[in-house]
């Protein structure tokens, strides 16, 4: 059911190695074998790291909403029950749960999962783009002499920005 397909899970990262062009398919392009090997060595580790980071942060972001939605619902239900059933236990439980949710909300807000997820995803997708620019000998990888240094520099720049979170405040 698509409605619940994007719920968070306990293992957001798959065991399968992320590929841009699957290794089995790379054999069909022998002219690019050298470039594929270079990209696998210099770009793909950063791409996988950023992709996994994006998945982790996205999963945390989703957990945040699950906690807030269901926690908020539970506190509301307990409040309604307290109106009909006179019991101090319910009031205490409600207060404890509300305090826990409040603490969780503060912690989650301070963790900036959403911003980190966007940051990592953007960087991963930029690296995906660099992969094809390098393969196609397109700008900025036109000159044979400085293709590799350009790739190394750009990959490091993008990866650093993707993993670093700086508050806009």
């Amino acid at each position, binding site marked *: 059911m698509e409605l619940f397909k994007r*719920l968070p899970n306990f293992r957001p990262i798959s065991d399968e190695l992320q590929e841009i062009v699957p290794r089995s398919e790379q054999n069909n392009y022998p002219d690019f074998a050298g470039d594929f090997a270079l990209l696998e060595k210099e770009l793909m580790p950063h791409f996988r790291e950023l992709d996994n980071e994006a998945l982790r942060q996205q999963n945390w972001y989703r957990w945040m909403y699950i906690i807030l939605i269901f926690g908020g619902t539970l506190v509301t239900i307990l409040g309604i029950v307290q109106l009909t059933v006179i019991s101090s236990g319910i009031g205490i439980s409600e207060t404890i749960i509300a305090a826990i949710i409040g603490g969780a909300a503060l912690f989650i807000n301070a963790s900036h999962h959403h911003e980190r997820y966007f940051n990592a995803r953007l960087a991963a997708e930029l690296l995906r783009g660099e992969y*094809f620019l390098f*393969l*196609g*000998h397109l*700008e900025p990888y036109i000159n044979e002499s400085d293709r590799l240094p350009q790739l190394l520099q750009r990959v490091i720049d993008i990866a650093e920005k993707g993993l670093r979170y700086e508050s806009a405040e």
Partner: protein
Amino acid sequence: MNQQNRETFLKLYQHYRYEHQLSFYVNRHQEFTRAQTQALVFSMGHGNYLSTAFLRELLLPQIQRTVTDAQITSNLRSRLATALHQLDGFFFEFFRVDLLNLFHE
């Protein structure tokens, strides 16, 4: 890069970048549409608080793969179409990607 390599690259790009990205957007759009319908049905029976919250915060499509290779998609899209002899279909499909981009923002 010689002509043969250029054509090989264009085929590779079309398959692993363009078609991959297009199918991602199409699938995500279909998934979102189905989820939206299911949420509406769900909200009819269970009040709309939870389902609305799910829709807004959990089911929003991922901001993913929205970064395109401007050098290739803008400069080469006509050349790609010409090279692959698909001027009528391929060229216009890039605009479909742009349209789907809009849906996902």
